[in-house]
């Protein structure tokens, strides 16, 4: 059941970013372009996702443990540090430049356009560089 749950969660996630159009980097960049052809759709995606997740987390985190695993693995990192801020700045630059963040970029691979593949390869390289050079490990601590 744990395997099926992971697959189904991925399926729902993929359906969500696709039906909302977030898989299209131009649509995302148009959201970020407040003074241009602003497309507010992403605001609606975030608002709905946040409302549903907030309500759902309230319910599921009341349980002593997850249904098919031993414990909830919640991010253990606390506090605002340079790494968090610096990482967010760098991510923001790349997101703005391309309109791609990790989820939609990986999902968009299925359409077979070369920019998706080029982006995901570069992103994987960036992740490998960051974990080996800056974090000194290939198992980076993650909030998500």
């Amino acid at each position: 059941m744990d395997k099926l749950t992971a697959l189904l969660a991925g399926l729902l996630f993929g359906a969500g970013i696709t039906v909302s159009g977030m898989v299209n980097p131009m649509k995302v960049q148009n959201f970020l372009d407040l003074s241009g052809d602003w497309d507010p759709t992403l605001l609606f995606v975030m608002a709905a996702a946040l409302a549903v997740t907030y309500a759902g987390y309230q319910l599921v985190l009341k349980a002593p443990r997850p249904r098919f695993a031993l414990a909830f693995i919640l991010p253990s990192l606390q506090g605002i540090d340079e790494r968090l801020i610096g990482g967010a700045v760098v991510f923001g630059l790349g997101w703005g430049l391309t309109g791609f963040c990790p989820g939609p970029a990986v999902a968009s691979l299925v359409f077979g356009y070369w920019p998706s593949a080029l982006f995901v390869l570069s992103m994987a390289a960036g992740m490998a560089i960051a974990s080996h050079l800056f974090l000194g490990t290939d198992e980076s601590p993650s909030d998500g």
Partner: protein
Amino acid sequence: MLSRHQEGMDPLDAHSLATAFTPLAGLAGGILIGLSAILLMGGLGRVAGVSGIFGALLGRWRPDNAWRALFILGLLAGTILTSLLGGFDSNSMAFPGNPMTTVVGGLLVGLGTTLGAGCTSGHGICGIARLSMRSIVSTGVFMFFAVATVYLMRHVIGAS
């Protein structure tokens, strides 16, 4: 510069930059993403953060990478299924920039999400839904810098 990869589309047609505001599809998609996050937390006790999930798959294989691989497989399948069922027209895909901005942007997104321990899904949705101060700050910062980058690219430099 706008690169379209469909025959018969004018890649330099400035109007094709615009995308339609689709609030209902946005809400529907957001609900599905929320359900995914709840399912992953309630079922496996895990955060639905794509940068963390994808990043861990790049490292040495470990037993708990099985669920991550299945999540990514589901993500790809969900995208294909939704398109096949008419929920998205893949001909509308359009990619800002050029090969150089794509490579630089990919590197920055990989570096930034690894250092900052999360992206739009992990911090922006799951983290904020837990009222995590780290995630709220992170999301504010990356949103601000993404908006500033697009402003600079489109309205100051005039590229893209």
